[in-house]
């Protein structure tokens, strides 16, 4: 499978990464090369194989529904590029 410029623009948008127009063509070539190399997986018949998401066949643990920490607003927001009154600040979303 090869990808074209429009597909690269679409996935860049999905990934929220700004890509300049002149970068689309070289990126399409790069990604197509990788995807073609990956295609060798189609040689393997996997019709009867269950997918594997985790190496351990374990059931995720439960923990007690109790408060373990909290009250750390200052520490949590300390790394924010912009903030106000203990909140994270973002550009205006609602017009």
């Amino acid at each position, binding site marked *: 499978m090869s990808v074209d410029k429009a597909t690269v623009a679409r996935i860049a948008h999905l990934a929220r990464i700004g890509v300049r127009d002149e970068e689309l063509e070289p990126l399409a070539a790069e990604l197509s090369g990788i995807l073609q190399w990956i295609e060798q997986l189609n040689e393997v018949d996997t019709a009867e194989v269950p*997918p594997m998401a985790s*190496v351990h066949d374990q059931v995720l643990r439960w923990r007690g529904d109790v408060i373990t920490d909290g009250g750390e607003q200052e520490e949590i927001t300390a790394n924010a590029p912009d903030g106000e009154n203990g909140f994270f600040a973002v550009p205006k979303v609602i017009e």
Partner: protein
Amino acid sequence: MSELTNLTISQARDLLAKGELSSRQLTESHVEAMAQATQLNAFVSPLPDVALEMAEASDSRRAGGSAGPLEGIPLAIKDLFCTKGTLTTAGSHILNGFKPPYESTVSDNLWQAGAVMLGKTNMDEFAMGSSNETSYFGPVQNPWRGRGDNRALVPGGSSGGSAAAVAGRFAMAATATDTGGSIRQPAAFTGTVGSKPTYGRCSRWGVVAFASSLDQAGPITRDVRDNAIMLGAMASYDPKDSTSANVPLPDFEAALTGDIRGLKIGVPKEYVLDGMPGEIETLWQQGIAWLRQAGAEIIDISLPHTKYALPAYYIVAPAEASSNLARYDGVRFGLRVPGGDLREMYENTRATGFGAEVRRRVLIGTYVLSAGYYDAYYLKAQKIRRLIARDFTEAYETVDAILTPSAPSAAFPFGDKADDPIAMYLNDIFTVPANLAGLPGISVPAGLSAEGLPLGLQILAPAFDEETMFRVAGVVEQAANFTAQPEQWWKVPA
């Protein structure tokens, strides 16, 4: 004091215990060596003041009668581990200025064991790379150079800074992480010992995530015994990591009995590659001979899906990365590049903050997870992953461990593979299967290439049987008697 930088952890531990050496002395000698090695660019954040302060605190603890298993030992920490209040970058611009308000479980375990932090080591951006050329902070140079050749070589990746610091004798040992070979391949390229334990052995809590189902922390050290000591201190069951394994922690050092008589060692025929340098094949045969001489039984095995491990990995890892890296949005931490609206701010921030390789992988990951392609790529890769894991399960019905080369070549010059992503990815051809299957593996320096560069052999073992892995590694180490060290060409006069 320069000879102090040649000690192993076990040697230093004995001298410290006898009172013949203080952590302050040991740490000072490493801090000095670190300051002389800035040319190698192994550290994003060297922390000499923190190191000396921690060393003095360690000496006080010892004087007070309490000493942990790593008491007073100066270590380098890969900059993927969050360290409380200390800049943590993951080799990326997007984490600009990030000072975590918490400590990773692995590094916290090391401080609880008495260790001293020398600094945070350079690495490929978000651990994506095999040559350390993708770091925002510039590449790390390998302390090794070819005989009669002064070209700078890559240290391997992604844990290149950690490997260079240990090989260059300015850190006694280092933490590292391995998602597809990022501990074992740089260890092989630098003549050091690097192990990736079983998935779940070390907590991933506080380790900046790349591909969560593959990432594992492990140590890079100067010998196998130190590796066992380090892993014992790093590993723990951690309720804060839902994939942390609640299993007993064995005494890994005690596994180094040197006795492998009767052990069955598998040699997989699929690890013979077309075009692989003859010296890699020769070294592998040498390793087989060593183990046979030590009384092991060598058994030819087949891991039939080996050739599909890398392409499957390059679906699974980017898919998980694209999801994990969604958190870098310029809102809660790190870089923000303003834009006309919120979406443009996200796009500008991520365009500026991510380097070329990270962008490439996030885009691939986004594509294989996108509507209409999920089954063809991601689901297919997960099924192949099952087959690769099954290959190992079947092999371990007849063998106790597996011997392979660690990497298909010795260290190469900068720029050699930088323009060809697939050529770069092939570096990890021998290491990736263990990540997909979650199994432990270790690289041990076993010989030199024709150019005088280190080459490694890899020992793989069944899940949670790091003891067998270490035992076999110890035998390979003893037989190889690898004593070569790089010339310290980087040292500036004090």
